[in-house]
């Protein structure tokens, strides 16, 4: 099969994929290979000694939540002694924003690609500011984490069961035409999700817990993000492992390195040091407090959302910085490094063109344009949390390394 034919097959499998938020289950019951001490994290694999402050903070919170330790010192001892089994979530059909920490007792969204029979998993979205995924772990964070897993998750599970699942792909398509880009702007998608969910929440829950759940999902602002990320991974995984395809199927960062995976190159990661982020900081914080780029959420860009869909979401620049003109220019640039356009995700401001889809390592290297990423900024110190949001770009070294490997593979 030629490269063009392989890429066409890859895109077709992605295009025909679905993403249905179908259930909530406990991580240890559904995530493959989840042992009693497994700790999954965002991005390519990274050892404890290279993990950044916010990722260590998140692991500290997760270990306290699991009852494995009660102080950061005890967690560090567990990690150094090798008692924690670290792995990339991407290796286990899972995905997570920022540090993306998943431990066995956490409840996870189950998102199903019904066409290709792929299930993917992500934790529940916690909100912005002082949250676990950004490395915060004080009593307030732990109380919220326990409520989400012990009370909110069972309620959502019942509601989803009654609904028979919620079609995320349709919500994404609709929200793109309502001014969202589905990474850092989810005003419409979050409301659409709540609209789809609310009648079922009311039907299965007690009034007080339902009111609390609705209020939380509404105020969290981006509650849908984690489920959309799992859905994006499920759709892209359908396009992975296509012999001779040059399309990127994963783009992820762990706060130390950024990595990509390419369909025709299997599960290999091509990595480079994670870049810093240019952005807008919350009051009291600045660039000197920022951690390098982190999280699996660039899976949204990989599926044609986030910065790739910014032309349809000019208001997102109020959160991440830039101008409406820049938002348009970014989407137009991303068309230069992709081989197709999404058949379902359409952008009104560019005459309903589909969002740029199928990042091609050849085009990235040839044009010198790397994928732009809209993202949150974590404080580099563990225990603080999110301090802003902004823009960065995947390092070119990931793509040149992948290109070299691709050529070498074809020669052998």
């Amino acid at each position: 099969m030629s490269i063009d034919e392989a890429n066409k097959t890859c895109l077709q499998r992605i295009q025909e994929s679905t993403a249905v938020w179908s259930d909530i289950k406990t991580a240890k019951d559904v995530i493959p290979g989840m042992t009693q001490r497994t700790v999954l994290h965002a991005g390519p694999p990274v050892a404890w000694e290279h993990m950044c402050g916010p990722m260590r903070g998140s692991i500290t919170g997760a270990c306290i939540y699991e009852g494995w330790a009660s102080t950061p010192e005890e967690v560090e001892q567990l990690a150094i002694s090798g008692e924690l089994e670290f792995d990339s979530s991407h290796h286990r059909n899972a995905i997570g924003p920022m540090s993306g920490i998943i431990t066995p007792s956490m409840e996870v969204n189950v998102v199903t690609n019904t066409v290709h029979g792929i299930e993917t998993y992500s934790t529940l979205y916690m909100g912005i500011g002082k949250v676990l995924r950004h490395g915060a772990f004080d009593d307030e964070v732990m109380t919220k984490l326990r409520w989400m897993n012990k009370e909110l998750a069972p309620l959502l599970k019942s509601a989803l069961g009654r609904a028979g699942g919620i079609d995320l792909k349709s919500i994404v398509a609709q929200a793109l035409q309502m001014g969202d880009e589905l990474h850092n702007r989810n005003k419409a998608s979050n409301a659409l999700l709540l609209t789809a969910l609310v009648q079922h929440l009311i039907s299965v829950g007690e009034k007080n817990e339902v009111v609390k759940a609705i209020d939380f999902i509404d105020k969290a602002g981006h509650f849908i993000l984690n489920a959309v990320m799992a859905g994006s991974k499920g759709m892209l995984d359908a396009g992975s492992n296509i012999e001779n395809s040059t399309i990127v199927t994963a783009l992820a960062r762990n706060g130390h390195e950024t990595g990509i995976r390419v369909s025709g190159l299997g599960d290999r990661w091509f990595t480079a040091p994670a870049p810093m982020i240019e952005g807008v900081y919350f009051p009291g914080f600045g660039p000197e407090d920022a951690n390098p780029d982190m999280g699996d959420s660039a899976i949204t860009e990989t599926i044609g959302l986030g910065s790739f869909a910014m032309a349809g979401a000019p208001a997102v620049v109020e959160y991440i910085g830039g101008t409406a003109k820049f938002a348009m220019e970014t989407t137009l640039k991303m068309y230069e490094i992709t081989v197709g356009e999404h058949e379902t995700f359409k952008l009104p401001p560019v005459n309903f063109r589909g969002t740029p889809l199928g990042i091609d390592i050849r085009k990235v290297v040839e044009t010198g344009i790397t994928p732009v990423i809209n993202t949150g900024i974590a404080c580099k110190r563990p225990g603080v949390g999110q301090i802003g949001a902004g823009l960065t770009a995947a390092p070119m070294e990931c793509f040149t390394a992948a290109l070299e490997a691709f050529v070498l593979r074809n020669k052998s």
Partner: protein
Amino acid sequence: MKPDQSLLQQPIRVINIGLESFSEDLRKAEIPVIQMDWRPPAGGDLRLVALLDSLAEEA
């Protein structure tokens, strides 16, 4: 070419490919100019260009 059809006797409109300072000089002279966003393939890295060329045969 007749003298009144000379290029220099018509209004000049320019598309510039390459150094943007050429565009800036023309703009200062109030000449309409479009700066094309162009750069050499792979930033001019011949090794990468060779890798891309080797794949072009398989495309």
